[in-house]
């Protein structure tokens, strides 16, 4: 993870497009400027970044399901629960599944576990937009490569 760059996902462990489910991993860095303020003497992953992590895991799932024909943009956090703290050095396993694919939007459910224990979960809504320009599409291709996105799922 590179928190300052919003690189929340390190690698894709499993992407099952047929079952509309993804598992990804992310290791929380041991040091980050974010932890200097959140909190001094007790560094803790901010809840909003846990939500962002679940959104990005969901986003990779949707990119796979949609074969990179649309870009998912987070539109609503229907529910989010932070059930336990996540600390620097923790390895997060995130799982996301597609709850509903509508016309131009999708809803997912996502979970974060550390050492098998549930730390957070959320229900998220995304709008699915055409890639606005080639820069963004190129960036997402690079991100997909970085996290080990299955190449057969990248191209339509």
């Amino acid at each position, binding site marked *: 993870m590179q928190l300052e760059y919003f690189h929340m996902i390190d690698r894709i462990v499993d992407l099952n497009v047929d079952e509309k489910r993804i598992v990804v991993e992310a290791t929380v860095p041991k040091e980050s400027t974010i932890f200097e303020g959140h909190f001094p003497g007790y560094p803790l992953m901010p809840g909003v970044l846990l939500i962002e992590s679940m959104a990005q895991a969901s986003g990779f799932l949707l990119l796979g399901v949609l074969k990179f024909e649309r870009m998912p943009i987070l*539109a*609503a956090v229907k529910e989010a629960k932070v059930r336990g703290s996540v600390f620097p050095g923790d390895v997060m396993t995130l799982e996301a599944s597609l709850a*509903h694919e*509508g*016309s*131009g*939007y999708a*809803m997912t459910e996502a979970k974060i576990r550390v050492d098998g224990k549930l730390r957070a979960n959320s229900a998220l*809504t995304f*709008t699915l937009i055409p890639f606005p320009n080639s820069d963004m599409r190129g960036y997402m291709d690079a991100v997909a490569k970085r996290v080990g996105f299955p190449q057969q799922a990248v191209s339509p």
Partner: protein
Amino acid sequence: MSTTFDQVATIIAETCDIPRDTITPDSHAIDDLGIDSLDFLDIAFAIDKQFGIKLPLEKWTQEVNDGKATTEQYFVLKNLCARIDELVAAKGASA
């Protein structure tokens, strides 16, 4: 068995916290009920689930943006319900 309108009105009332008795077949979801596009996604989700269909929101939006349709055709509730009935019938015909 409740009508399509009754079901849709109940969905809207519960999803958007709008008093049920203010929702009529002639209500415009956007102009009269003040439902924005994000809230309408929740309504579409509930309708999709309840009726087993997929409201073609993107197609409708494109038609409105292109001037080929008016928002009234899709978002006045009696018209929305007619579209839902058509989609349900089409689904039944293809099943």
